[in-house]
């Protein structure tokens, strides 16, 4: 069971990477081609922007969720930097993780409401008639994936905290190294 879950987890990450690469290639090629056609042949692709922005949305929100997995989101981390006691530090990381999850869940719920609204009315873009649900759907998917990865990190932080409390260590670099090793 654990093996299957691990495989699914890795598959999910690979699928996200593939989406990011494909979107990047199409965006670069598409915009360059459009510029060349407009400048050389004086031909403009009407509605092209709608397609590019759709791909950009997938790039943004799948990228943001991949950033959650890889812990690439920007953090200031000022107070934890000055706390030497590893138990307090671990406890603070747990609290921060929990707050972040709650925020992600709130926006996940609002994203579901937006998606449902769009699904019921089925609006499309003016030129290419691209369904808006493809834009709003990836926002929802992005928030769901972010919540999922935050939960994974939260579980890791709990394990780290329990291990630290169990070991009875409370300070110095050793505790920090153990946390790093656990994560």
């Amino acid at each position, binding site marked *: 069971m654990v093996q299957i879950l691990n495989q699914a987890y890795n598959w999910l990450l690979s699928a996200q990477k593939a989406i990011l690469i494909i979107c*990047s290639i199409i965006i*670069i090629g598409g915009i360059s081609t459009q510029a060349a056609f407009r400048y050389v042949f004086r031909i403009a692709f009407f509605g092209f922007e709608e397609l*590019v922005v759709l791909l950009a949305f997938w790039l943004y929100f799948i990228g943001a969720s991949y950033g959650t997995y890889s812990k690439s989101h920007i953090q*200031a981390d000022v107070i934890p930097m000055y706390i030497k006691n590893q138990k307090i530090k671990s406890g603070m990381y747990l609290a921060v993780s929990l707050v972040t999850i709650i925020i992600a869940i709130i926006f996940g719920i609002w994203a579901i*409401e937006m998606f449902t609204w769009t699904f019921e009315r089925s609006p499309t873009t003016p030129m290419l008639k691209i369904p808006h649900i493809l834009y709003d759907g990836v926002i929802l998917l992005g928030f769901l994936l972010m919540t999922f990865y935050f939960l994974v990190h939260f579980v890791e932080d709990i394990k780290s905290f329990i291990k630290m409390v169990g070991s009875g260590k409370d300070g110095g670099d050793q505790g920090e190294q153990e946390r790093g090793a656990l994560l």
Partner: protein
Amino acid sequence: MMIIAFLLIVLGLVLGVPVPFTFLGVAAYLVFALELDPTFLLPYASSEIRSVVLLAIPLFIMIGGITFQSGMGSTLVKWVDVVFGKVRGGLGVVSIVSCAVFGSISGSALATLSAIGSIMFPQLHANGYPKGYSAALLSSACVLGLYIPPSALMILFAWTGGQSVLACFLATVVPGIILIILLSIVNFVMLRNVKEIHVREKSPIKEDIKLFGQRGYRAAPAMMLPVIILGGIYGGIMTPTEAAAVSVLYAIPVGIFVYKGLTVRKLLDTFVSTATSTGVIMLMMFAMMMLSRVFIMEDLPHTILDYLTAVSDEKIVLLLMLNVFMILIGMLMDDVSGVLLSTPILLPVAQLIGVHPIHFAAILAINLGMGNVTPPTAPLLFLGAKLGDSNVSDMLKPTLYLILFAWLPTLLLTTYVPGLAMFLPGLILGISY
């Protein structure tokens, strides 16, 4: 209510809540506290970021990644070294100028620090430059990547503030040149008595000219990038997004076949890392759109202006207070978060006291650039320490000198002499102030 919201932003940031989730959390708090209807927030932010202009950001970050991977940076450094490498402290100037030259290709300070730092740190250490000093200097110099166009930060400002991208690109050029000069002077002064520094032997001027030509020839394909980007944009041939896409398309074969540092594997990794960075930035922007919408609904800019004018209604004092506010923002968060928070709130305030938005772009950029190297939150300082194998504590003293004698004078000049920031936008685009 707004004071609590601000306190929550600061609290979230210092506790280490990811920046976009700090913004989202405060937006959610305001929705609940002010009993607003939340259903308008996400569709509003979604419609706001549906812009092709914003796609220039990932594309410029991508150019930075590709040029870094392909080894173009080393060619540029060698070229600059011919001119500045033979005087005491000259290698420091080579680092500063290389950052500026690389900045004209890449739109990001982090990409500039990674590319130039990885080349310059070993050379600086081998030539006797103190590690702490080297790391501090490059951390400050790489910010030039934000001031020499193209600049991802200026695209964000232009888009958030509804201004011309081209004008914002030009606004930071003269302040950037002033910073280059001041950083170089401080560098020479600080290193004048460091005996451990090795200086390259003098050679005949003819040999130097020949070497300059040879290395320039080698650097020419890389230097075509700013020509494509800036020539394409200011020649009216391409939009910034198109220029960025065409440059990526140009940089890939040049990186693979000319400089040979780029491989298909590295290219795919660059795509993923760029998309991740973009996702992180765009989520922040998405969050900030919602938060700023609530701020504007509550008329926050006027409230801030009322507080400021209660202290003084002199423009000089008001500008000083705005600068202090922006410095504090810069000290607490990175440049991207800073520009997203400051623009919707402070740009209307600046306009109300008679500051031109394009002039404000330059003021904001210098403030946030300086914030990037000012603790406690100094992402470039920390990356500089990592790349330069130095302790942050060894970097603090030189950083303080660089801030006092290079950054602050640049900030004051940019703020109180509007003609500096407005010179190129006026000359090229005919913008008057």
